[in-house]
């Protein structure tokens, strides 16, 4: 009996819940697979998809968002071996699953922990609550391939933002495989969009994009590029998360910072009276 010929996977972009090739028709080879080389146009398309998803995702009830993030954890757990086959250590996959679970639980607690009633000096009801800032561009860390990626996506979306992620150019296969997890987790299309390719090509377009509200530069290792991106981001006053140190410990407790940096605080006043 002859050996079965394997069916190989095509690694494509993830935009608006679909898996298109780059509009440029280009690809590059990583781990013996062809991976889409996203263009600036792909980046802009991804922003359009992310913007279109904001209303539904930001407007979803927190309980619903939490369940969907938990569903991502369930799906990732079931696809553990796929990541191991891409050289992601099993322990890292486990940590990534746990991180989704941890963030899932935050969806309906953020407003309580980060917002609240303010005792103003007058007869007024006054309440502050966090809201998503909108569309967030995220530069994923170079490594760890899966845990790093999950650790920047989950905190951005749990509060109701949608994201356009520039995946680590060195580890795009894990990113596209995570996209397949997301696509089967009831996450609405466009909430997470993933671009593979070269950072200097896609990220400046995202940093300069006037319909992007925030940019997370975590994975930018070139200090000069990071400064240049921050300058571009100033044009519409994007919220900026600066790059993390090369020795950042991704297994440590993430804290609230990544979530709250991408939230706005809205304060509502109303007089009290009869």
């Amino acid at each position, binding site marked *: 009996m002859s050996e079965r010929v394997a069916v190989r996977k095509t690694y494509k972009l993830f935009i608006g819940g679909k898996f298109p090739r780059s509009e440029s028709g280009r690809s590059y080879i990583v781990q013996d697979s062809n991976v889409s080389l996203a263009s600036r146009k792909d980046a802009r398309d991804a922003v359009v998809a992310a913007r279109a998803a904001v209303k539904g995702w930001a407007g979803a009830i927190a309980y619903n968002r939490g369940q969907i993030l938990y569903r991502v954890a369930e799906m990732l757990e079931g696809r553990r071996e796929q990541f191991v086959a891409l050289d992601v250590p099993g322990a890292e996959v486990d940590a990534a699953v746990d991180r989704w679970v941890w963030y899932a639980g935050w969806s309906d607690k953020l407003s309580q922990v980060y917002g609240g009633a303010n005792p103003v*000096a007058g007869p007024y009801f006054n309440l502050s609550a966090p809201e998503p800032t909108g569309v967030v561009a995220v530069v994923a860390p170079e490594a760890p391939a899966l845990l790093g990626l999950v650790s920047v996506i989950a905190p951005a979306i749990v509060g109701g933002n949608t994201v356009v992620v520039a995946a680590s150019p060195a580890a795009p296969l894990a990113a596209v495989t995570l996209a397949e997890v997301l696509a089967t987790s009831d996450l609405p299309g466009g909430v997470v969009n993933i671009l593979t390719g070269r950072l200097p090509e896609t990220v400046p377009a995202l940093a300069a994009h006037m319909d992007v509200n925030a940019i997370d530069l975590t994975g930018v290792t070139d*200090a000069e590029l990071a400064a240049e991106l*921050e300058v571009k981001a100033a044009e519409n006053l994007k919220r900026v998360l600066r790059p993390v140190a090369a020795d950042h410990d991704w297994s440590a407790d993430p804290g609230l910072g990544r979530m709250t940096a991408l939230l706005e605080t809205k304060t509502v*006043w109303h007089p009290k009276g009869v």
Partner: protein
Amino acid sequence: MFEYAPAPESRSVVDIKPSYGLFIDGAFVDPADGGSFKSVNPASEEVLAEIAEGGSQDVDRAVRAARKAYEKVWGRMPGRDRAKYLFRIARLIQERSRELAVLESLDNGKPIKESRDVDIPLVAAHFFYYAGWADKLGHAGFGPDPKPLGVAAQVIPWNFPLLMLAWKIAPALAAGNTVVLKPAETTPLTALLFAEICQQADLPAGVVNIVTGAGETGRTLVEHPGVDKVAFTGSTDVGRAIARAVAGSRKKLTLELGGKAANIVFDDAPVDQAVEGIVNGIFFNQGHVCCAGSRLLVQESVADQVLESLKRRMAQLRVGDPLDKNTDIGAINSAAQLARIRELTEAGAAEGAQRWSPPCELPERGFWFAPTIFTGVTQAHRIAREEIFGPVLSVLTFRTPAEAVEKANNTPYGLSAGIWTEKGSRILWMADRLRAGVVWANTFNKFDPTSPFGGYKESGYGREGGRHGLEAYLNV
């Protein structure tokens, strides 16, 4: 209009010196390059004092003094002691409130009833509020032992001179930072009196440094490599320039910038209350308010009625001497700002909107602008898009709540918004959808030290006030 006899507040309660130096390392000093400028009373164009202009050497000296005070004294002082200094300052502001209010009205042009009843009481309250945080930072939700950032560079505007100083300095000091603050060029006097209050409170030298000057002094300060934190309140254009200037540095940045707030009046709103809210929203502080309700969105079915009441009310506003206790609208802060207001209102008329002001006699000297409304404004008009920062209201109409939301959010700004309706569920539905940091429902222009303030989108980032306001000054 009723005739009132003049009821001026006495200006003898405040003693203005002929000239002021820079406040660096606990003492008033001459600037290294000897430059100076004049601060003028905008209601009379009278020169109030000669003010030192800080150059790069002065900024450097101030940053070094702040660094030394941070490392040697303030950064290592127990929170309970920092708290006591801040409580002392709060008390001194209360004790000297009359003096501060008169000085603020003289230098800024705002009516004494506002500086006396709003600005200065809020300043004291702000210091009192943050004083209490200094020894409770571990309970603020930023971890058990959050650390200060170091030296904060703070640049503030001229519309609420001492209040903006309080918003900047109180949380910075409570968190354990030291500061170099640059007041606005046209309104430095209350900041300099505040420096005297710091001396009176025996605040350790170098914890607060005040470097007066214009834009160049501010630019030098925020670009100084020795600062760890930059906080700015002012125009969106300058905010953008500062964001570019700190790019790639370690400096933490918070920005409180411009606004073009929608004040939305529904057909079920009590008209008299709404009109008071509209007037307060746009004519408070001559409209020199970043969160001013400068776009009135009124539901079409009640537009005529609301406008008629509004015009009747506007005819009662008293424009004139800021020190007169009956004055509702004082002087425009500067000739430059008056020119800006004129330019935009002329554009409004040229673009086809209808302009109306009540009959209103303006003083001959000084900088004045009559309260003005424009009707027939479209969303494309400059007066509906650009921040005028003056007593000028653009009136638009809408039919449905969804249309009101669309129009309200159709701006790059997102600082504040107002909603007037008797229906609670509609307030909450609207509040959810308005992209603005502060939403006032059936009220407007309310401020409190416990209440976070700050914008969405191009109105900036970070919050001032409340627990949230500490975050800007902690290493979290």
